[in-house]
């Protein structure tokens, strides 16, 4: 007897579609909803993983709109450290849908808020993109002037865009309790001071994210009618969760919500496409193959595999930068061997990874010291543990100060 399942292709069955297929060989995996022309102006934004998407689109001949840049003769690393050349504008990572909506609203109205200036060691930072000035600015007024200038550029950029590629990263965020302003980092991590009376933790649910994305889409379409959207979900797990859940549970919650919203939006709107990068990296047949040893950072091989799937539907232009555009020979890895390296040249800039420093401190030193003292009924931390704790504090501070982006891609 014939059923709707009788004539389905192999891709529709788990065994033939996934279990018996190598992670790099997923076939017929993504079908574009609309084409992207090489002269379409593309704006990219989102969590750290979005940087990989932006880099690869650029290298493969797509027209990435650049609203804020530095002269080409300046060293690329210097530009990157200052938030240039990462996305279309210098907004840094946009981890949550609410943060995106907030940027759109602010850019539309030119709104800058003095309370969004954070201080550290006499230098001043834009709390809404704290990593773009590594040593901060000279005064709070200068930060506000910079933000105003940035918002003008963002507004001009969105008036000109044809395709908006956005990677949803997190549902967890920190907000200012009185205004509801959402920040990309917890106060105190890069700058500012954490005050529980001023700032609070928020974990958006599926309705929040959906409503924010719908509102963001509406605003963008008002600015640029005919705009098309490509959504992705970052496959990078949370560095840390501020919720009561285990970080794995929190990650699953977060990613499930983001993935659900993408499905809802792609189902509802013809101008919204979903590109399944999340699925490629996290697929069970990959057996975490695309993650680095920390099981968070996506390897360059993983990124290339993702982008290959993207370019199978949106073909790459003839490129000159072969090192960047050529995907490695694919196929099952024989005999094990080392994992492919994490993206190096295209290291991403990621504030969330800074939480790792606190994690190292907490898990290795302080907590072990506390546990040790509890275990032995001690009320003080043993000298040896105190020494370890001090070293870890130093390491944590170093990590924050230098902001090494090589830690990982996040969210």
């Amino acid at each position: 007897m014939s059923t709707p399942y009788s004539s389905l292709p192999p891709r529709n069955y788990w065994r033939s579609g996934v279990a018996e297929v190598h992670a790099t060989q997923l076939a017929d995996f993504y079908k574009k909803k609309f084409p992207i022309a090489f002269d379409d102006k593309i704006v990219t934004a989102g969590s750290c993983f979005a940087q990989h998407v932006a880099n690869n689109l650029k290298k493969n001949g797509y027209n990435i709109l650049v609203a804020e840049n530095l002269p080409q003769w300046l060293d690329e690393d210097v530009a990157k450290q200052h938030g240039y050349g990462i996305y279309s504008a210098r907004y840094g990572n946009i981890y949550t849908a609410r943060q995106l909506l907030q940027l759109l609203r602010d850019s539309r109205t030119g709104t800058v808020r003095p309370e969004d200036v954070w201080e550290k060691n006499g230098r001043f930072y834009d709390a809404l993109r704290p990593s773009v000035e590594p040593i901060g600015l000279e005064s709070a007024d200068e930060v506000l002037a910079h933000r105003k200038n940035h918002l003008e550029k963002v507004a001009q950029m969105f008036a000109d865009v044809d395709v908006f590629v956005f990677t949803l990263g997190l549902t967890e965020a920190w907000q200012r309790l009185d205004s509801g302003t959402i920040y990309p980092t917890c106060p105190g991590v890069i700058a500012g001071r954490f005050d529980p009376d001023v700032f609070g933790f928020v974990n958006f649910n599926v309705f929040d994210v959906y409503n924010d994305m719908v509102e963001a889409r509406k605003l963008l379409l008002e600015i640029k009618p005919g705009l098309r959207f490509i959504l992705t979900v970052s496959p990078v797990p949370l560095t840390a969760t501020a919720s009561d859940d285990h970080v794995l549970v929190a990650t699953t919650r977060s990613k499930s919500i983001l993935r659900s919203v993408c499905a809802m939006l792609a189902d509802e709107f013809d101008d919204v496409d979903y590109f399944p990068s999340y699925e490629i990296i996290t697929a069970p047949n990959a057996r975490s193959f695309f993650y680095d040893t920390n099981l968070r950072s996506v390897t360059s091989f993983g990124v290339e595999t993702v982008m290959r799937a993207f370019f199978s539907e949106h073909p790459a232009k003839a490129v000159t930068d072969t090192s960047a555009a050529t995907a490695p020979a694919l196929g099952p890895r024989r005999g094990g061997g080392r994992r492919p390296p994490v993206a190096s040249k295209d290291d991403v800039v990621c504030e969330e990874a800074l939480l790792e420093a606190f994690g190292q401190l907490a898990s290795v030193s302080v907590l072990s010291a506390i546990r040790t003292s509890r275990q032995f009924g001690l009320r003080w931390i043993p000298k040896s543990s105190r020494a370890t704790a001090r070293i870890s504090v130093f390491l944590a501070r170093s990590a924050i100060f230098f902001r090494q982006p090589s830690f990982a891609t996040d969210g």
Partner: protein
Amino acid sequence: MTSDEPKTRKSLRFTGGTPFISLDAYDVFCVVGCRTSVNAANLIAQDYSSVRLGLPGGQLVSQELMDILLIDRFRKTIAGTLIDLLAQSTDKPIYLIPDPLWSTKVFEEPRGVIMGAIAKSTHAADYADWVYRCLQSAFAGKATVMRQPADTIENNVFTAQTYSQNSIGLGRRVVEHPETDFVHMNGAYGARILEEFFATVDKPAAL
């Protein structure tokens, strides 16, 4: 040491007598150039501004980035490259005599708009200092940067106009620069710089 650029080789022959620089033949190397004002602030200010500069339009960048841009610009000039090569090849003292700040005559040019804005900005008070500081950073450990004598500078931004009157080009043929030329300086400026240079080389090099 020589250049792979025919024009530069020709220029070396003209200025040094040979198409190459003999590292053994000299005790001190003096590099003149770096196009201080042409390539630096003005070029940067066409697209970028800082809060202190307060120029309309363009992207606002931090003072730190303005410094980085200027330092990088200096390093990438021909003079910068030459200093790098010399520093790699010899331990003998190297001096940089930077090109002069533009003359106030620049106001007769379209580019005068930007320089005028710089002159009116809060940055003006230490503009010449800023240029000098960035030159020093660009060549720290490689060359001693000569500072443009204070008495040749007007309003901390320009070279006094008297030093750009009747300037001549000392190429193969001596050519009089146009009256509106704001980049080249005259013999009086050259004499003043030489005086300063010899006063400096008499002192121990402070790298």
